[in-house]
């Protein structure tokens, strides 16, 4: 087992190296430069000045040299500084992660709390009116454009009703609040975004749950359980559910890297300073160090996630042995 993990980690490092080479090449080959500035030319910013800035960023060196320099820094866990504001890339990423993680986690919990029961109850009542209306409900969530739903909710709940803040994650007076006030304030701000993001993803989990449950309910051991005269509740929740949940766990594992990815559209509409916006803004500004930083962290998480999944399979399933 130990040897297996060691070998896998060596493999991962090589894979990661390959990923960085490819992403580095791709983002530098994309047309455009960090010195293209904003969306308007400024006649006061001369060509010489832009060339000077380009030189100070080291962008006039050949690409392989730039890559090696970047890699040398990376080995020391230094992701460099952002071209946009000269702040360390790591600092910029770390200040964004908590918000994104909180929202993604909260919405994932909400999805599970609502999606799984919907899936189970639909499977149990397969083909009923309830089943069909739930299907319609979750697919409405899936089909409605997030930005539209968000704006409508903001308009009615935030502007007209005034019950919740419209956008952002904190009130203007946040710094003066006590701990509990802060907690309530942030929660109030997060209700709409979390609800909208959960509504959009209910369909996935509830459908997986439904079909997995249906599958299990047709198994012989369920018939046996019923034949034994067990109460329906016990059959469903003790015997069927445990087995039906396995595929859901796999899906959850796959969504781990997404927890820190965030979403551009979503974060922009709700003015949430998260990872999605950071990545989008840095791509638009060709802020290479930040783009690379976000991508490397994403890649590492994905690779680790895979490794973890493989290892835990072996732990869970006695039929699988790792060599």
């Amino acid at each position: 087992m130990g040897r297996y993990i060691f070998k896998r980690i060596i493999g991962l490092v090589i894979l990661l190296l390959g990923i960085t080479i490819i992403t580095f090449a791709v983002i530098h080959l994309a047309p455009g430069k960090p010195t293209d500035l904003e969306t308007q030319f400024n006649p006061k910013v001369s060509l010489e000045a832009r060339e000077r800035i380009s030189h100070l960023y080291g962008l006039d060196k050949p690409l392989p040299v730039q890559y090696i320099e970047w890699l040398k820094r990376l080995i020391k866990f230094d992701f460099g500084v952002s071209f946009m504001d000269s702040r360390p890339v790591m600092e910029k990423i770390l200040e964004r992660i908590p918000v994104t993680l909180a929202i993604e986690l909260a919405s994932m919990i909400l999805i599970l709390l609502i999606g799984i029961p919907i899936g189970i109850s639909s499977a149990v009542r397969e083909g009923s009116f309830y089943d069909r209306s739930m299907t319609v409900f979750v697919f409405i969530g899936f089909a409605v454009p997030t930005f539209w739903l968000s704006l409508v909710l903001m308009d009615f709940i935030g502007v007209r009703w005034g019950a919740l803040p419209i956008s952002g994650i904190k009130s203007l007076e946040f710094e003066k609040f006590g701990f509990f006030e802060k907690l309530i304030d942030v929660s109030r701000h997060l209700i709409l975004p979390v609800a909208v993001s959960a509504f959009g993803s209910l369909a996935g989990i509830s459908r997986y749950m439904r079909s997995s449950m249906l599958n299990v309910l047709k198994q012989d051991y369920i018939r046996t359980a019923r034949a034994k005269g067990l109460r329906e509740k016990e059959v469903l929740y003790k015997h069927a559910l445990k087995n039906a949940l396995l595929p859901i766990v796999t899906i959850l594992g796959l969504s781990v890297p997404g927890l820190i990815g965030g979403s551009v559209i979503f974060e922009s509409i709700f003015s949430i300073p998260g990872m999605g916006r950071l990545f989008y803004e840095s791509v638009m500004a060709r802020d290479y160090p930040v783009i690379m930083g976000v991508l490397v962290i994403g890649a590492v998480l994905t690779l680790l996630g895979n490794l973890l999944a493989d290892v835990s399979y072996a732990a869970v399933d006695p039929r699988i042995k790792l060599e």
Partner: protein
Amino acid sequence: MNILQKIYAVRLRQAAFLFAILFLLGFTADYGDTIVTGSIGEPRTLVPILASDSSSGAICGLIFNGLVKYDKDLNITGDLAERWDVSQDGLQITFYLKKGVKWHDGALFTSQDVEFTYKSLIDPGVRTPYAGDFQVVKRLEVIDDYTLKVYYKEPFSPGLASWGMNIMPKHLLEKEDLNSTKFARNPIGTGPYKFKIWKTGERLELESNHDYFEGRPYIDRYIYRIIPDTATLFLELRGQAVDYTSLTPIQFRRQTETEFFKKNFQRFNFPSFGYTYMGYNLKDPKFKDIKVRQAINYAINKEEIIRGVLLGLGRVSTGPFIPESWAYNKNVKPFEYNPEKAKALLKEAGWEDQDRDGILEKDGLKFSFTVITNQGNDERKMAVEIIQRRLKEVGIEVKIKIIEWSAFVSEFINKRRFEAVLLGWGLSLDPDMYDIWHSSKTREGEFNFVGYSNEEVDRLLLEGRRVFNQEERRNIYNRIHEILYEDQPYLFLFVPDALPVLHKRFKGVEVAPNGIGYNFIKWFVPSSERRYAR
């Protein structure tokens, strides 16, 4: 009337007077309240000489001062400088600085700070985009704490306005690397507002500087909220969680024409400092003939574009200057919309529809070209669509291509891989346009990307930089304006209006050629209408 009655009458008058004063006080300037502005962009850095984006510029403008600034009528006036002299030959400018001005940390502002800022601007290790204007300075001499002399290599009249560059504190930055200093997110200036907090991606907060040398600003707190989505920003405005932002023409004309907005907000419209144009690649044989360019100008109804794209909130542009500027030549009249004249001119230039397919030909080539513009600007996109239709009517086929900004600039504009381009210029208030129109500025990445070359304009541009007298400069730029409109290297389209919207509780706002922000420190909220307690 006995004596008692007299005393009583006087008392009464005094009381009435006192009451009137108290009553007025409720509506006159007083300190307090907060202004919340909403913006889609976030500042990048608050080191003023590194800041190239408009958000950073807006915040730096409240925290810092230059030596000079533009007043409400767009004339240069003293800011940190009390006054200045320009020598007869135009080679020296002597600045006499205001005394007793303090940095927000209490240190005195002196000419040492100006010298430090100048040295940073010309330091090749500093990532400033503004070195250009200061590289023509031969040297800067500090005479005493409040006097300094700038020596120029040659007379350079835009140089005076360039000293509007925000001055940075030497005592805090001397030992810092400007490119990476913490000062960028915790600045100390001399301006009307002091920096307080910056929450990335959320907001910046400033508080009024009670010791500001032009007087304490009436509004105590300035909050700059970052709201990247325009629809959300508009909802926040409607929820009165944002006091001050800009509207789009459609928001101005349609969505804010409600009772609610009229009751709670004041809207303004005045010409912005920029214009939108269609530039031709003058190396392209189709556009070499001036008659063709003039024909296109006759074929396009500029008023129609303003009505359609800006809903009437703009004016026809006839040249590269700000309409309110002294450099603008009011005698240059826009070509009228006249498709017949356009057709006649095209015929004179040899373009005729020989195969009767509705598109003109010359030497077997069809008159068809592609206009490129950048993604994310609907006004530009709509303007090209109208141009496309109007040109089709005179027999010219137009194709449209929309490209993401950064790729657009580096692959198409800088490399001059375009036939025509629809773009806008945001302009500084000094009329010097050497970088845009001089025939030497056509290298890759320079701003004369249409490849314009006119000997007289070249000469006038140089002259305009050497003359300080505004009357003489006016004549020069008026002539440039005339030639450019005649030559039509650009199809000058429109000057869009700036459309700020502001909560109604803010008083003391007056529209001037310089917009509304010039007297921000004099804006106030009557005590009865405050929304934010301190």
